[in-house]
Protein backbone atom coordinates (compact mmCIF):
# COMPACT_ATOMS: atom_id res chain seq x y z
CA UNK A 1 0.00 0.00 0.00
CA UNK A 2 2.70 2.48 1.01
CA UNK A 3 4.82 1.31 -1.87
CA UNK A 4 1.93 1.96 -4.19
CA UNK A 5 1.45 5.47 -2.85
CA UNK A 6 5.17 6.11 -3.05
CA UNK A 7 5.23 5.04 -6.68
CA UNK A 8 2.17 7.06 -7.52
CA UNK A 9 2.95 10.30 -5.75
CA UNK A 10 6.73 10.48 -5.59
CA UNK A 11 8.74 8.28 -7.93
CA UNK A 12 6.53 8.33 -11.00
CA UNK A 13 6.05 12.14 -11.01
CA UNK A 14 9.78 12.55 -10.38
CA UNK A 15 10.64 10.41 -13.40
CA UNK A 16 8.14 12.28 -15.56
CA UNK A 17 9.46 15.61 -14.36
CA UNK A 18 13.04 14.61 -15.14
CA UNK A 19 12.10 13.55 -18.67
CA UNK A 20 10.20 16.77 -19.27
CA UNK A 21 13.03 18.76 -17.69
CA UNK A 22 15.68 17.19 -19.88
CA UNK A 23 13.62 17.76 -23.03
CA UNK A 24 13.06 21.38 -22.07
CA UNK A 25 16.75 21.92 -21.31
CA UNK A 26 17.70 20.46 -24.68
CA UNK A 27 15.25 22.87 -26.29
CA UNK A 28 16.79 25.74 -24.30
CA UNK A 29 20.28 24.81 -25.46
CA UNK A 30 19.10 24.42 -29.02
CA UNK A 31 17.20 27.70 -28.89
CA UNK A 32 20.44 29.55 -28.29
CA UNK A 33 21.79 28.25 -31.59
CA UNK A 34 18.49 28.55 -33.45
CA UNK A 35 18.04 32.11 -32.28
CA UNK A 36 21.50 33.22 -33.35
CA UNK A 37 21.17 31.45 -36.67
CA UNK A 38 17.69 32.67 -37.55
CA UNK A 39 18.47 36.18 -36.37
CA UNK A 40 21.48 36.14 -38.65
CA UNK A 41 19.51 34.89 -41.62
CA UNK A 42 16.85 37.54 -41.08
CA UNK A 43 19.51 40.24 -40.88
CA UNK A 44 21.08 39.23 -44.22
CA UNK A 45 24.05 37.41 -42.71
CA UNK A 46 24.79 33.79 -41.90
CA UNK A 47 25.07 33.47 -38.14
CA UNK A 48 27.21 30.80 -36.46
CA UNK A 49 28.03 28.25 -39.14
CA UNK A 50 31.42 26.76 -38.25
CA UNK A 51 31.51 24.71 -35.06
CA UNK A 52 31.29 20.98 -35.66
CA UNK A 53 31.10 21.00 -39.43
CA UNK A 54 34.12 18.71 -39.73
CA UNK A 55 32.64 16.24 -37.27
CA UNK A 56 29.38 16.00 -39.13
CA UNK A 57 31.11 15.76 -42.47
CA UNK A 58 33.04 12.77 -41.18
CA UNK A 59 30.11 10.81 -39.80
CA UNK A 60 27.54 11.45 -42.51
CA UNK A 61 27.56 10.36 -46.14
CA UNK A 62 28.63 12.94 -48.65
CA UNK A 63 25.23 13.35 -50.25
CA UNK A 64 23.76 14.59 -46.97
CA UNK A 65 26.29 17.36 -46.40
CA UNK A 66 24.17 19.92 -48.17
CA UNK A 67 21.28 19.43 -45.79
CA UNK A 68 23.21 19.74 -42.53
CA UNK A 69 23.07 23.28 -41.23
CA UNK A 70 26.49 24.55 -40.28
CA UNK A 71 27.58 25.11 -36.70
CA UNK A 72 25.37 22.52 -35.02
CA UNK A 73 27.90 21.84 -32.28
CA UNK A 74 27.56 25.46 -31.16
CA UNK A 75 24.83 24.01 -28.95
CA UNK A 76 27.52 22.15 -26.97
CA UNK A 77 30.30 24.69 -27.39
CA UNK A 78 28.39 27.50 -25.69
CA UNK A 79 27.73 25.71 -22.37
CA UNK A 80 31.33 24.47 -22.29
CA UNK A 81 32.54 28.01 -22.74
CA UNK A 82 30.26 29.22 -19.96
CA UNK A 83 31.62 26.54 -17.65
CA UNK A 84 35.25 27.29 -18.36
CA UNK A 85 35.16 31.08 -18.15
CA UNK A 86 36.48 32.84 -15.10
CA UNK A 87 33.82 33.55 -12.51
CA UNK A 88 34.35 37.18 -11.55
CA UNK A 89 32.79 38.48 -8.34
CA UNK A 90 33.01 42.26 -7.94
CA UNK A 91 34.69 43.07 -4.63
CA UNK A 92 32.11 45.74 -3.83
CA UNK A 93 29.13 43.45 -4.34
CA UNK A 94 26.78 42.18 -1.66
CA UNK A 95 28.00 38.59 -1.68
CA UNK A 96 24.95 36.61 -0.51
CA UNK A 97 22.50 38.51 -2.67
CA UNK A 98 24.93 38.39 -5.56
CA UNK A 99 24.99 34.60 -5.41
CA UNK A 100 21.24 34.35 -4.86
CA UNK A 101 20.48 36.58 -7.86
CA UNK A 102 20.98 34.02 -10.63
CA UNK A 103 19.61 31.12 -8.58
CA UNK A 104 16.24 32.60 -7.61
CA UNK A 105 14.69 32.93 -11.07
CA UNK A 106 15.70 29.35 -11.84
CA UNK A 107 13.53 27.83 -9.11
CA UNK A 108 10.11 29.03 -10.34
CA UNK A 109 11.16 28.58 -13.95
CA UNK A 110 11.93 24.90 -13.33
CA UNK A 111 9.07 24.24 -10.89
CA UNK A 112 6.51 25.32 -13.44
CA UNK A 113 7.43 22.40 -15.68
CA UNK A 114 5.70 20.11 -13.16
CA UNK A 115 2.39 21.81 -13.86
CA UNK A 116 2.25 21.91 -17.63
CA UNK A 117 0.32 19.16 -19.41
CA UNK A 118 2.50 17.92 -22.27
CA UNK A 119 0.11 15.29 -23.55
CA UNK A 120 -3.09 13.45 -22.75
CA UNK A 121 -3.43 12.72 -19.02
CA UNK A 122 -2.56 10.84 -16.90
CA UNK A 123 0.69 9.62 -18.51
CA UNK A 124 1.90 12.90 -19.94
CA UNK A 125 0.86 15.18 -17.12
CA UNK A 126 3.36 15.39 -14.27
CA UNK A 127 0.98 16.67 -11.63
CA UNK A 128 -2.64 17.22 -12.37
CA UNK A 129 -3.58 20.26 -10.28
CA UNK A 130 -7.06 21.69 -10.69
CA UNK A 131 -5.80 25.25 -10.13
CA UNK A 132 -2.72 24.67 -12.29
CA UNK A 133 -3.06 27.90 -14.22
CA UNK A 134 -3.25 29.99 -11.07
CA UNK A 135 -0.24 28.22 -9.62
CA UNK A 136 1.78 28.78 -12.79
CA UNK A 137 0.94 32.48 -12.77
CA UNK A 138 1.91 32.75 -9.12
CA UNK A 139 5.22 30.95 -9.66
CA UNK A 140 6.28 32.77 -12.80
CA UNK A 141 5.65 36.17 -11.28
CA UNK A 142 8.25 35.48 -8.58
CA UNK A 143 10.95 35.30 -11.22
CA UNK A 144 11.47 39.04 -11.04
CA UNK A 145 12.98 38.85 -7.52
CA UNK A 146 16.17 37.26 -8.73
CA UNK A 147 16.60 39.95 -11.37
CA UNK A 148 16.08 42.79 -8.90
CA UNK A 149 18.34 41.13 -6.35
CA UNK A 150 21.06 40.51 -8.89
CA UNK A 151 20.82 44.05 -10.21
CA UNK A 152 21.01 45.55 -6.75
CA UNK A 153 23.71 43.28 -5.35
CA UNK A 154 26.14 43.97 -8.20
CA UNK A 155 26.69 47.50 -6.84
CA UNK A 156 26.67 48.93 -10.34
CA UNK A 157 24.40 51.69 -11.52
CA UNK A 158 23.68 50.00 -14.84
CA UNK A 159 22.72 46.79 -13.10
CA UNK A 160 20.51 48.67 -10.68
CA UNK A 161 18.78 50.55 -13.48
CA UNK A 162 18.24 47.30 -15.33
CA UNK A 163 16.80 45.64 -12.26
CA UNK A 164 14.48 48.57 -11.56
CA UNK A 165 13.27 48.72 -15.14
CA UNK A 166 12.68 45.00 -15.12
CA UNK A 167 10.65 45.26 -11.91
CA UNK A 168 8.52 48.12 -13.21
CA UNK A 169 7.98 46.41 -16.51
CA UNK A 170 7.06 43.04 -15.06
CA UNK A 171 4.66 44.58 -12.57
CA UNK A 172 2.92 46.60 -15.28
CA UNK A 173 2.61 43.74 -17.72
CA UNK A 174 1.56 41.21 -15.12
CA UNK A 175 -1.82 42.99 -15.12
CA UNK A 176 -2.76 42.61 -18.80
CA UNK A 177 -1.13 39.16 -18.70
CA UNK A 178 -3.56 38.08 -16.03
CA UNK A 179 -6.54 39.95 -17.45
CA UNK A 180 -6.13 38.39 -20.87
CA UNK A 181 -6.60 34.95 -19.34
CA UNK A 182 -9.91 35.88 -17.72
CA UNK A 183 -11.81 35.67 -21.01
CA UNK A 184 -10.52 32.14 -21.57
CA UNK A 185 -11.50 31.21 -18.04
CA UNK A 186 -15.03 32.53 -18.60
CA UNK A 187 -15.41 30.43 -21.73
CA UNK A 188 -13.90 27.25 -20.34
CA UNK A 189 -15.03 27.62 -16.74
CA UNK A 190 -11.93 26.06 -15.20
CA UNK A 191 -8.43 26.79 -13.96
CA UNK A 192 -7.39 23.30 -14.92
CA UNK A 193 -5.19 23.37 -18.02
CA UNK A 194 -6.24 19.85 -19.02
CA UNK A 195 -9.89 20.86 -18.99
CA UNK A 196 -9.15 24.07 -20.88
CA UNK A 197 -7.42 22.06 -23.58
CA UNK A 198 -10.23 19.50 -23.73
CA UNK A 199 -12.75 22.33 -24.03
CA UNK A 200 -10.83 23.73 -26.99
CA UNK A 201 -10.76 20.33 -28.67
CA UNK A 202 -14.51 20.03 -28.21
CA UNK A 203 -15.27 23.55 -29.43
CA UNK A 204 -12.66 25.65 -31.16
CA UNK A 205 -9.19 26.96 -30.38
CA UNK A 206 -9.53 29.91 -28.07
CA UNK A 207 -7.40 31.87 -30.52
CA UNK A 208 -10.55 32.72 -32.49
CA UNK A 209 -13.12 33.68 -29.84
CA UNK A 210 -10.40 35.32 -27.72
CA UNK A 211 -8.33 36.86 -30.51
CA UNK A 212 -7.72 40.11 -28.65
CA UNK A 213 -6.84 38.25 -25.48
CA UNK A 214 -4.40 36.10 -27.44
CA UNK A 215 -2.79 39.22 -28.88
CA UNK A 216 -2.51 40.83 -25.45
CA UNK A 217 -1.10 37.61 -24.06
CA UNK A 218 1.51 37.51 -26.82
CA UNK A 219 2.58 41.11 -26.17
CA UNK A 220 2.57 40.70 -22.40
CA UNK A 221 4.55 37.48 -22.62
CA UNK A 222 7.21 39.26 -24.66
CA UNK A 223 7.32 41.97 -22.03
CA UNK A 224 7.42 39.48 -19.15
CA UNK A 225 10.47 37.75 -20.58
CA UNK A 226 12.30 41.01 -21.32
CA UNK A 227 12.45 40.15 -24.98
CA UNK A 228 12.67 42.65 -27.81
CA UNK A 229 10.85 44.96 -28.38
CA UNK A 230 10.55 45.16 -24.59
CA UNK A 231 14.14 44.34 -23.67
CA UNK A 232 14.70 47.57 -21.78
CA UNK A 233 16.18 45.86 -18.69
CA UNK A 234 19.14 44.72 -20.76
CA UNK A 235 19.20 47.44 -23.38
CA UNK A 236 22.71 47.20 -24.74
CA UNK A 237 22.89 50.75 -26.01
CA UNK A 238 21.91 52.29 -22.69
CA UNK A 239 22.72 49.91 -19.85
CA UNK A 240 25.68 47.82 -21.08
CA UNK A 241 23.87 44.57 -20.28
CA UNK A 242 21.39 45.64 -17.61
CA UNK A 243 20.98 43.52 -14.53
CA UNK A 244 23.57 40.93 -15.57
CA UNK A 245 26.34 43.41 -16.38
CA UNK A 246 28.50 42.17 -13.50
CA UNK A 247 27.76 38.50 -13.95
CA UNK A 248 30.08 36.19 -15.81
CA UNK A 249 30.56 32.53 -16.58
CA UNK A 250 28.00 30.11 -15.14
CA UNK A 251 26.10 32.76 -13.18
CA UNK A 252 25.37 34.59 -16.41
CA UNK A 253 24.40 31.26 -17.96
CA UNK A 254 21.92 30.76 -15.12
CA UNK A 255 20.24 34.05 -15.98
CA UNK A 256 20.02 33.01 -19.60
CA UNK A 257 18.74 29.58 -18.60
CA UNK A 258 16.02 31.13 -16.47
CA UNK A 259 15.08 33.52 -19.25
CA UNK A 260 14.79 30.84 -21.88
CA UNK A 261 13.02 28.46 -19.50
CA UNK A 262 10.40 31.06 -18.69
CA UNK A 263 10.09 31.79 -22.41
CA UNK A 264 9.24 28.13 -22.93
CA UNK A 265 6.82 28.21 -20.00
CA UNK A 266 5.02 31.18 -21.50
CA UNK A 267 4.88 29.50 -24.90
CA UNK A 268 3.47 26.38 -23.24
CA UNK A 269 0.82 28.56 -21.59
CA UNK A 270 0.04 30.27 -24.88
CA UNK A 271 -0.35 26.91 -26.60
CA UNK A 272 -2.45 25.46 -23.78
CA UNK A 273 -4.70 28.47 -23.45
CA UNK A 274 -5.19 29.58 -27.02
CA UNK A 275 -3.89 26.94 -29.43
CA UNK A 276 -5.50 23.76 -28.12
CA UNK A 277 -2.51 22.17 -26.39
CA UNK A 278 -1.75 18.65 -27.58
CA UNK A 279 -4.99 18.31 -29.57
CA UNK A 280 -5.59 19.01 -33.22
CA UNK A 281 -9.35 19.11 -33.27
CA UNK A 282 -12.26 21.39 -33.97
CA UNK A 283 -15.74 20.88 -32.57
CA UNK A 284 -14.77 17.42 -31.31
CA UNK A 285 -13.55 16.17 -34.69
CA UNK A 286 -9.88 15.34 -35.25
CA UNK A 287 -7.18 14.37 -32.79
CA UNK A 288 -8.98 14.94 -29.51
CA UNK A 289 -7.80 13.65 -26.16
CA UNK A 290 -10.13 10.64 -26.47
CA UNK A 291 -8.77 9.66 -29.87
CA UNK A 292 -5.15 10.04 -28.74
CA UNK A 293 -5.85 8.02 -25.59
CA UNK A 294 -7.38 5.27 -27.69
CA UNK A 295 -4.02 4.77 -29.41
CA UNK A 296 -2.28 4.20 -26.10
CA UNK A 297 1.33 5.26 -25.67
CA UNK A 298 1.80 6.06 -29.36
CA UNK A 299 -1.12 8.47 -29.24
CA UNK A 300 0.33 10.07 -26.14
CA UNK A 301 3.69 10.58 -27.79
CA UNK A 302 1.97 11.99 -30.87
CA UNK A 303 0.14 14.43 -28.60
CA UNK A 304 3.38 15.47 -26.92
CA UNK A 305 5.02 15.97 -30.31
CA UNK A 306 2.12 18.16 -31.44
CA UNK A 307 2.41 20.14 -28.21
CA UNK A 308 6.16 20.64 -28.55
CA UNK A 309 5.90 21.65 -32.21
CA UNK A 310 3.30 24.27 -31.34
CA UNK A 311 5.57 25.52 -28.55
CA UNK A 312 8.51 25.70 -30.94
CA UNK A 313 6.36 27.69 -33.34
CA UNK A 314 5.89 30.34 -30.67
CA UNK A 315 9.55 30.21 -29.71
CA UNK A 316 10.37 30.99 -33.33
CA UNK A 317 7.89 33.84 -33.11
CA UNK A 318 9.98 35.35 -30.27
CA UNK A 319 12.98 35.31 -32.59
CA UNK A 320 10.94 36.71 -35.45
CA UNK A 321 9.79 39.61 -33.27
CA UNK A 322 13.33 40.20 -32.09
CA UNK A 323 14.56 40.44 -35.66
CA UNK A 324 11.77 42.80 -36.65
CA UNK A 325 10.89 45.33 -33.98
CA UNK A 326 13.07 48.08 -32.56
CA UNK A 327 13.16 48.66 -28.81
CA UNK A 328 10.52 50.80 -27.11
CA UNK A 329 11.37 53.85 -25.08
CA UNK A 330 10.55 53.39 -21.41
CA UNK A 331 7.62 55.82 -21.36
CA UNK A 332 6.25 54.25 -24.54
CA UNK A 333 6.45 50.90 -22.83
CA UNK A 334 4.47 52.15 -19.85
CA UNK A 335 1.99 53.91 -22.16
CA UNK A 336 1.40 50.72 -24.07
CA UNK A 337 0.99 48.70 -20.91
CA UNK A 338 -1.30 50.97 -18.93
CA UNK A 339 -3.13 52.99 -21.58
CA UNK A 340 -3.66 50.35 -24.24
CA UNK A 341 -3.19 46.81 -23.02
CA UNK A 342 -5.13 47.03 -19.75
CA UNK A 343 -8.19 48.87 -21.18
CA UNK A 344 -8.17 46.52 -24.15
CA UNK A 345 -8.06 43.50 -21.85
CA UNK A 346 -10.89 44.91 -19.74
CA UNK A 347 -12.96 45.64 -22.85
CA UNK A 348 -12.31 42.09 -24.02
CA UNK A 349 -13.53 40.72 -20.70
CA UNK A 350 -16.66 42.89 -20.86
CA UNK A 351 -17.49 41.91 -24.44
CA UNK A 352 -16.89 38.23 -23.75
CA UNK A 353 -19.02 38.33 -20.62
CA UNK A 354 -21.88 40.14 -22.37
CA UNK A 355 -21.88 37.81 -25.37
CA UNK A 356 -21.71 34.68 -23.24
CA UNK A 357 -24.52 35.95 -20.99
CA UNK A 358 -26.66 36.95 -23.97
CA UNK A 359 -26.05 33.51 -25.40
CA UNK A 360 -27.32 31.91 -22.21
CA UNK A 361 -30.34 34.23 -22.23
CA UNK A 362 -31.34 33.86 -25.88
CA UNK A 363 -30.10 30.33 -26.43
CA UNK A 364 -27.24 30.76 -28.83
CA UNK A 365 -23.63 29.79 -28.37
CA UNK A 366 -21.69 32.88 -27.40
CA UNK A 367 -18.28 31.57 -28.40
CA UNK A 368 -19.49 30.90 -31.95
CA UNK A 369 -20.34 34.58 -32.36
CA UNK A 370 -16.99 35.56 -30.88
CA UNK A 371 -15.17 33.06 -33.09
CA UNK A 372 -16.80 34.43 -36.21
CA UNK A 373 -15.80 37.95 -35.17
CA UNK A 374 -12.23 36.81 -34.46
CA UNK A 375 -11.92 34.91 -37.70
CA UNK A 376 -13.31 37.93 -39.57
CA UNK A 377 -10.66 40.18 -38.01
CA UNK A 378 -7.90 37.72 -38.97
CA UNK A 379 -9.24 37.38 -42.51
CA UNK A 380 -9.58 41.16 -42.94
CA UNK A 381 -6.04 41.75 -41.66
CA UNK A 382 -4.60 39.10 -43.94
CA UNK A 383 -6.53 40.57 -46.85
CA UNK A 384 -5.16 44.04 -46.17
CA UNK A 385 -1.68 42.65 -45.70
CA UNK A 386 -1.50 40.34 -48.69
CA UNK A 387 -3.64 42.17 -51.23
CA UNK A 388 -1.83 42.84 -54.46
CA UNK A 389 -1.25 46.54 -54.87
CA UNK A 390 0.93 49.04 -56.59
CA UNK A 391 3.92 50.19 -54.64
CA UNK A 392 2.62 52.89 -52.35
CA UNK A 393 4.96 55.71 -51.63
CA UNK A 394 3.97 56.89 -48.19
CA UNK A 395 6.05 60.01 -48.04
CA UNK A 396 5.18 62.63 -50.62
CA UNK A 397 7.72 65.31 -51.28
CA UNK A 398 5.99 68.65 -51.12
CA UNK A 399 8.78 71.12 -51.57
CA UNK A 400 12.52 71.13 -51.66
CA UNK A 401 14.60 73.66 -49.84
Amino acid at each position, binding site marked *: MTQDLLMRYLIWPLVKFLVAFIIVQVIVAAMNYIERRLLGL*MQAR*LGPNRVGNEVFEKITPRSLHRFIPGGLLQIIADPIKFLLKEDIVPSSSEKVAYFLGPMLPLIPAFLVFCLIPYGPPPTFVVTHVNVGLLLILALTSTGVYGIILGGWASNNKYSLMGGLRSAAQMVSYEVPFGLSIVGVLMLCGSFDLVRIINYQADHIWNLFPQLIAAFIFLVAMNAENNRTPFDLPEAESELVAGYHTEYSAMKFAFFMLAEYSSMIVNCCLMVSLFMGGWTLAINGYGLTTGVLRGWGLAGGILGAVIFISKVMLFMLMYIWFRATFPRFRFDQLMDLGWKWMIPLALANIAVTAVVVLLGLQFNFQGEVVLSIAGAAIIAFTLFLLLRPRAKVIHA*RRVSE*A
Partner: protein
Amino acid sequence: MHVEYQKPRWTDKFLLLDMLEGLKTTLRELFKPKVTIRYPEERLEPANRFRGMFKFSFDRCIACKLCALACPIDIIYIDVHDEQREIDGKMKKLKVLDRYDIDVKRCMFCALCEEACPTKPKSIWLTTKTYELASYDRKDLYFNMQQLEYWEGRPEYAGLPADEPEPKQIEGGMP
Protein backbone atom coordinates in the same frame (compact mmCIF):
# COMPACT_ATOMS: atom_id res chain seq x y z
CA MET B 1 12.97 69.52 -46.99
CA HIS B 2 9.39 69.30 -45.94
CA VAL B 3 7.87 65.88 -46.14
CA GLU B 4 4.19 65.24 -45.79
CA TYR B 5 3.20 61.76 -44.74
CA GLN B 6 0.07 60.03 -45.78
CA LYS B 7 -2.29 59.78 -42.86
CA PRO B 8 -2.78 56.13 -41.86
CA ARG B 9 -6.32 54.90 -42.02
CA TRP B 10 -7.83 53.76 -38.75
CA THR B 11 -8.02 50.18 -39.98
CA ASP B 12 -4.30 50.19 -40.68
CA LYS B 13 -3.67 51.56 -37.23
CA PHE B 14 -5.90 49.17 -35.33
CA LEU B 15 -4.86 46.05 -37.16
CA LEU B 16 -1.16 46.95 -36.72
CA LEU B 17 -0.59 46.68 -40.44
CA ASP B 18 2.78 48.45 -40.24
CA MET B 19 4.10 45.92 -37.76
CA LEU B 20 2.76 43.01 -39.79
CA GLU B 21 4.38 44.54 -42.85
CA GLY B 22 7.65 44.56 -40.93
CA LEU B 23 7.20 40.94 -39.97
CA LYS B 24 6.57 40.15 -43.62
CA THR B 25 9.80 41.87 -44.58
CA THR B 26 11.94 39.93 -42.11
CA LEU B 27 10.29 36.69 -43.16
CA ARG B 28 11.10 37.43 -46.78
CA GLU B 29 14.66 38.26 -45.81
CA LEU B 30 14.99 34.90 -44.06
CA PHE B 31 14.68 32.98 -47.31
CA LYS B 32 16.77 35.27 -49.47
CA PRO B 33 20.16 33.91 -50.51
CA LYS B 34 22.95 35.57 -48.56
CA VAL B 35 25.86 37.33 -50.21
CA THR B 36 28.38 36.46 -47.50
CA ILE B 37 31.53 34.78 -48.75
CA ARG B 38 32.86 32.19 -46.29
CA TYR B 39 36.46 33.22 -46.66
CA PRO B 40 38.83 30.31 -46.30
CA GLU B 41 36.55 28.02 -48.28
CA GLU B 42 35.27 30.57 -50.75
CA ARG B 43 37.28 33.42 -52.19
CA LEU B 44 36.47 36.34 -54.36
CA GLU B 45 38.79 36.65 -57.32
CA PRO B 46 40.26 40.14 -57.34
CA ALA B 47 39.80 42.41 -60.33
CA ASN B 48 42.31 42.24 -63.15
CA ARG B 49 44.00 45.48 -62.21
CA PHE B 50 44.30 44.45 -58.54
CA ARG B 51 47.81 44.95 -57.17
CA GLY B 52 48.87 41.94 -55.21
CA MET B 53 52.11 40.13 -54.51
CA PHE B 54 55.13 40.72 -56.78
CA LYS B 55 56.21 38.39 -59.46
CA PHE B 56 59.66 38.70 -61.00
CA SER B 57 61.12 37.23 -64.15
CA PHE B 58 64.88 36.71 -64.18
CA ASP B 59 64.98 36.04 -67.91
CA ARG B 60 63.33 39.29 -68.89
CA CYS B 61 65.23 41.52 -66.50
CA ILE B 62 68.00 43.61 -68.01
CA ALA B 63 69.31 44.79 -64.64
CA CYS B 64 68.80 48.46 -65.41
CA LYS B 65 67.87 49.32 -61.79
CA LEU B 66 65.07 51.63 -62.95
CA CYS B 67 62.62 49.95 -60.60
CA ALA B 68 64.89 50.54 -57.64
CA LEU B 69 65.17 54.17 -58.68
CA ALA B 70 61.43 54.50 -59.04
CA CYS B 71 60.70 52.99 -55.69
CA PRO B 72 59.67 55.82 -53.37
CA ILE B 73 60.68 53.98 -50.21
CA ASP B 74 63.77 52.26 -51.57
CA ILE B 75 62.96 48.72 -50.70
CA ILE B 76 64.24 47.12 -53.89
CA TYR B 77 67.86 46.06 -53.44
CA ILE B 78 69.78 45.24 -56.62
CA ASP B 79 73.39 44.12 -57.01
CA VAL B 80 74.86 43.78 -60.49
CA HIS B 81 78.20 42.75 -61.92
CA ASP B 82 79.48 43.09 -65.47
CA GLU B 83 80.36 40.05 -67.48
CA GLN B 84 81.95 39.59 -70.88
CA ARG B 85 80.02 37.09 -72.84
CA GLU B 86 80.12 35.91 -76.41
CA ILE B 87 76.90 36.48 -78.28
CA ASP B 88 76.70 35.88 -82.06
CA GLY B 89 80.47 35.66 -82.24
CA LYS B 90 81.01 39.06 -80.67
CA MET B 91 82.16 39.75 -77.18
CA LYS B 92 79.58 41.79 -75.41
CA LYS B 93 79.47 43.44 -72.03
CA LEU B 94 76.50 42.18 -70.12
CA LYS B 95 74.99 43.05 -66.79
CA VAL B 96 74.16 40.08 -64.63
CA LEU B 97 71.96 40.20 -61.57
CA ASP B 98 73.49 39.04 -58.32
CA ARG B 99 70.77 40.13 -56.02
CA TYR B 100 67.23 41.27 -56.51
CA ASP B 101 65.50 41.57 -53.12
CA ILE B 102 62.27 43.26 -52.18
CA ASP B 103 61.41 44.04 -48.58
CA VAL B 104 57.70 43.41 -49.08
CA LYS B 105 56.73 44.18 -45.49
CA ARG B 106 57.48 47.84 -46.12
CA CYS B 107 55.97 47.97 -49.57
CA MET B 108 52.89 50.08 -50.18
CA PHE B 109 52.03 48.42 -53.49
CA CYS B 110 52.14 51.62 -55.52
CA ALA B 111 53.32 49.68 -58.58
CA LEU B 112 55.73 52.47 -59.60
CA CYS B 113 58.40 49.81 -60.14
CA GLU B 114 56.17 48.05 -62.59
CA GLU B 115 55.55 51.33 -64.38
CA ALA B 116 59.23 52.07 -64.55
CA CYS B 117 60.25 48.70 -65.95
CA PRO B 118 61.41 49.20 -69.57
CA THR B 119 61.27 45.59 -70.71
CA LYS B 120 58.40 44.30 -72.70
CA PRO B 121 56.75 42.30 -71.25
CA LYS B 122 57.48 43.72 -67.84
CA SER B 123 59.94 41.82 -65.74
CA ILE B 124 58.35 42.84 -62.46
CA TRP B 125 54.62 43.08 -62.06
CA LEU B 126 52.02 43.12 -59.34
CA THR B 127 48.84 42.05 -61.07
CA THR B 128 49.07 38.56 -59.66
CA LYS B 129 45.81 38.66 -57.68
CA THR B 130 47.58 37.22 -54.68
CA TYR B 131 46.86 39.02 -51.46
CA GLU B 132 47.31 36.47 -48.72
CA LEU B 133 50.68 37.73 -47.53
CA ALA B 134 50.22 37.45 -43.77
CA SER B 135 53.05 35.74 -41.96
CA TYR B 136 54.11 34.85 -38.45
CA ASP B 137 57.58 36.27 -38.86
CA ARG B 138 58.93 39.53 -40.22
CA LYS B 139 61.71 37.63 -41.92
CA ASP B 140 59.21 35.80 -44.11
CA LEU B 141 58.31 39.03 -45.82
CA TYR B 142 61.75 39.71 -47.19
CA PHE B 143 61.91 38.12 -50.61
CA ASN B 144 64.93 37.38 -52.72
CA MET B 145 65.06 36.77 -56.44
CA GLN B 146 64.25 33.07 -56.33
CA GLN B 147 61.37 33.54 -53.94
CA LEU B 148 59.94 36.29 -56.11
CA GLU B 149 60.08 34.10 -59.14
CA TYR B 150 58.93 30.86 -57.60
CA TRP B 151 56.47 31.29 -54.75
CA GLU B 152 56.33 28.56 -52.23
CA GLY B 153 53.32 27.73 -50.14
CA ARG B 154 51.29 30.69 -51.19
CA PRO B 155 47.90 30.34 -52.83
CA GLU B 156 48.30 31.27 -56.43
CA TYR B 157 45.86 32.52 -58.98
CA ALA B 158 46.65 32.13 -62.59
CA GLY B 159 47.58 35.77 -62.55
CA LEU B 160 47.69 38.13 -65.44
CA PRO B 161 51.09 39.05 -66.80
CA ALA B 162 51.26 42.77 -67.27
CA ASP B 163 51.68 42.55 -71.04
CA GLU B 164 48.24 41.14 -71.69
CA PRO B 165 45.90 43.51 -73.45
CA GLU B 166 44.38 45.87 -70.98
CA PRO B 167 40.64 45.70 -70.51
CA LYS B 168 38.85 48.04 -72.83
CA GLN B 169 38.22 51.44 -71.43
CA ILE B 170 34.61 52.40 -71.34
CA GLU B 171 33.99 55.51 -73.33
CA GLY B 172 33.31 58.52 -71.22
CA GLY B 173 34.66 56.69 -68.26
CA MET B 174 37.55 57.65 -66.10
CA PRO B 175 40.28 59.67 -67.85
